[in-house]
């Protein structure tokens, strides 16, 4: 196996330009939501809202301003598949469509996926969803095709400020640790790495430098593998089905009310 490869996303230098989102879509030929005619979300400058089967990079815009604006910041963060060393999606995939590559990245093979959606539920980060064009589960491949040809992924290549850095995970971790030290020295004591060591799912090959709690970035503080919860999950899935059914009913009723 080649060296494990991954992303270090330094959110403190992200300018929210979304070049990563567009470069990803262009390289991977992913369709735009509603043919591009989606609606304004009203949630800052985020109009694509989440990672899913056609959005493999997603930039979050988190506005944090006190009422008098004396304290104010706009956190910008490009989210992506974490390429976990212990990957829940890979663990649950019944058709073996999800593989670990020679770069230690996690890739869904579209032609082997039967669209069962088990991986969607298994991912603690909500990264995966169905791509309506292929009707299979899809997510970031860390540009497996580019890596096989000695090229870096499209998003990191396009990132103008090196917020997204690509490379051997070992090297990225060293660089990231230094960067945290530099930020601490400069007074930004809130800076820390998310997922850069083995404690989190054996390590996230795509890890982040953050300056607020994980939840602020819609990240789980303590992500778990689905296998750890197997006994309990049998019970919960039964209850869950009931709840989901009830929600679906309410939703259907709401939908029929819409003009």
């Amino acid at each position, binding site marked *: 196996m080649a060296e494990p490869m991954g992303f270090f996303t330094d959110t403190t230098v992200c300018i929210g*330009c979304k070049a990563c989102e*567009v470069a990803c879509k262009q390289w991977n030929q992913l369709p735009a939501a509603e043919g591009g005619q989606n609606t304004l979300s009203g949630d800052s400058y985020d109009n694509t809202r989440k990672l899913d089967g056609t959005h493999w990079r997603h930039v979050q815009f988190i506005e944090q*301003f006190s009422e008098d604006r004396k304290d104010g910041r*706009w956190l910008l963060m490009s989210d992506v598949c974490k390429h976990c060393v212990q990957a829940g999606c890979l663990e649950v995939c019944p058709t073996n469509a999800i593989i670990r590559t020679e770069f230690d990245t996690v890739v869904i093979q579209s032609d082997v996926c039967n669209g069962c959606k088990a991986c969607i539920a298994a991912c603690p980060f909500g990264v995966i969803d169905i791509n309506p064009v292929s009707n299979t589960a899809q997510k970031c491949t860390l540009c497996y095709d580019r890596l096989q040809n000695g090229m870096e992924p499209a998003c990191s290549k396009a990132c103008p400020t090196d917020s997204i850095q690509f490379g051997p995970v070992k090297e990225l971790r060293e660089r990231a640790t230094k*960067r945290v030290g530099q930020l601490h020295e400069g007074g930004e004591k809130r800076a820390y790495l998310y997922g850069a060591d083995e404690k989190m799912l054996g390590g996230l090959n795509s890890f982040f430098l953050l300056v607020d709690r994980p939840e602020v970035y819609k990240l789980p503080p303590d992500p778990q593998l689905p296998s750890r919860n197997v006994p309990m999950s049998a019970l919960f899935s039964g209850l869950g089905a009931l709840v989901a059914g009830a929600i679906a009913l309410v939703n259907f009723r709401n939908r029929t009310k819409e003009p």
Partner: protein
Amino acid sequence: MHYRSMRDSDCVVVMGSNMAENHPVAFRWPMKAKVEHGAKIIHVDPRFTRTSAMADIYAPIRAGSDIAFLGGLVNFMLNSPRWNEDPFFRSFVVNYTNAATIISEDFRDTEQLEGVFSGLMKYTGDVKEWPYNGFLGEYENKSWQYARSQGKSTGWTGATQKSGEQEAGDEQNETQQRAAKLAAGGPPYDKLVQVLVPPSAERDETLQHPRCVFQILKRHFHRYTPEMVERATGCPRDVFERVAHAILDNSGADRTVSFAYAVAWTQHTNGPQVIGCCALLQLLLGNYGRPGAGIMALRGHCSIQGSTDIPTLYHSIHGYMAHPSAMSQHASLAEWLAAETQATGYWANTPKFMVSYLKSMYGKAATRENDFGYDWHPKIIGDHSHMPMFVAMNEGRVKGMLCIGQNPATSLNARLERSALRKLEWLVVKDNWLHETATFWKNAPEVRAGEVSTADIATEVFFFPAAQVAEYDGSFTNTFRMLQWHFKAAEAPGDCRSDNWFTYELGKRLKKLYAQSSEKRDEGFKNLVWDFEPDKPISPPGEPSAPKILKEINGYTSDEPGKHLGGFDELKDDGSTTCASWIYCGVFPKPDENRSANRQPDPPDAPGQAQLGWAWSWPANRRIMYNRASADPQGKPWSERKKYVWWDEGKKRWVGYDVPDFPLEKPPTDKGKPGATGMDALPGTAPFIMKSDGYGWLYVPNGLVDGPLPAHYEPAESPVRNPVYKQQSSPVYKYWKTAGNPLASIGDPKFPYVITTYRLTEHYLAGAMSRWNPWLTELQPELFVELSPELAAEKGIANLDWVRISSPRAQVRAKALVTRRLRPFTIDGRTVHQVGMPWHWGYEGVVTGDVVNEMSSLVGDPNVSIHEGKAFVCNVERA
């Protein structure tokens, strides 16, 4: 400024720009400075944007109050102990700027005249053929000039300049008349230049003389106190002072500050004065010609720099020379040269540049006997820029328009501009998509609303699909003057053709049309050199040879076209050299050496990182202009850390990491020859070689028509009275008084809010390059108006509500985006709300939305006729 050099800055001030959003790739360099060596980033802006998110200090200011803020910084520096005690500042200012120069005793400042300068008068310059110059008032700048004691004894009289294009009937001054007479017989033009040499200006290097520039500055800016900054801009005093300290602390022999601005400084009725105020500040701080110093003029389009170098501007010809005018003293080549040549400094070579340019236009037909074809050259008769052109068009004075890469149907006061389009006989649109201008006759809001009927529009519209940049060879000139060649990567589909193809074909057909004409006025067309046929056929048929165009721009020996010119020092004034644009001379020095195609980066550890092997930058492949200023008056680097270009005493020449911007063998000890022309007139300590005296101008005696110093004026439309002067707005801004272009009065209760318009990363200008791309439209699908929660609460508006925004010109609808990134300001004791709107939408494309520019007005700056889209007034209501 070389944008890579921002990596060397110790502090980057972004003001008048949203650099991270609108120039994200260039913003890489400030970010490197921040990450690599802890440079401070400061953002001064009406809105908290993605640039502010990266900033160490964000300073909010009301849109349109930039000079009040910058003037406050100037006053802060002049009064600070550090600035007054550090010998670096003193040395830079005395030796490299005109601080010591003494000004005419007739000059009166805004301090004496309640906010205006001496020389103000009523404007009377329009001619009946073109009554569209838009001036309300004008200045005569005689009283603004340097004091020159021997002026009378040598018979020299200074040029008097008045605003813009109104010089019809003015007497040419005696010196120019004498010069023109000497040049009437043709080249050489040395005697003409000699006659134009002015007597030396009086100076006081102690900076104590009450009329020296330094003392005038101190008096002029003394009212720009931190309190006044807070009153006029709304920026809290403590934030302003943090900004001022950061700038001062990072300036000096060992540190440098750069500024970056874009159209949020230019799009005002006094835009050039805003930029001038920053230049003044940077000169006072010694932040010029040095690594990480200067002012980064961010240009939004990949070749917008190229489009002013080889201009699409009406008032200049290639290489920033004045366009021949029927209204100025430009009747013959000799008179043009007498009026436009600056006898001292590098511009003394103007006759060489002009004659070589005329040779590129008319080739062999251009001879010394016929003034090198000067009479054939088109002449202007007034302001032919965008706004007056559309006012004239709306009055039926313009028959046809070629609209290439522009979308005026969504442009300034867009209803008025679309009304003008309806008056055209014909319109050619060449673009990627059928955008709003191409379909104004069937899909514009007034047509859909039934106010105008398609059947009543007689304009014949032709659409030419455009090839994309990767589909032909050519070059871009980027924001810091660097020419980069690009190669064709794919065939254009169907009938799509390059702009080169279109223009070349059009020229060929016009030449054919006029070939048999015996009219004198058609001689220009008949003699125009128009041969860019490729040696080997290239596809599609008719595509001209891009290298042949570059060759004409670069220049060659007139009698031996295979011999390219190596640089502008080879140009001659006798017609023996042909060169379309002197500043580009040297980019293509040999037939097999196109230096814009060079791609050799510096090794990462190379000192200076000038990257001289990567493409080619005008002038002379120089990356940092005026880099003589990176050494002290004796020629030594100011410090080891900021070392760049210096005098090598052993080699007796200027050396360094970059191409030195100075005569290579002129020593720092050279005193300059009194009475000499060109570079000989300047001392070895004068870095600003394009200026007649070699100094950076803190005070601008000529070149700006609205004052020698910046002063804060309110925008043409403002909710408040000017807190700084009695004079409300610039007394000389341009306004086109015409139906459909009313202005709100000061503090009009119907339009109580300030509005600023802008762009988003996700879209591009009027949208023709982004609104047809679903990958971009899904990121920003709908038009919105940004407003503060305070204003939203006052008006009962919730996030995502539909809102109606109105100005005296029009009203539009948009969804509300309520955010604390916008804030109310306290101006002169009262609350002023401000809203912001991006203007990318229109009625065509994958996503559509109202045309925000319908609300803007036709008012402009008097120097460059740019509009005021960055600050005007509006009302907002729930729709």
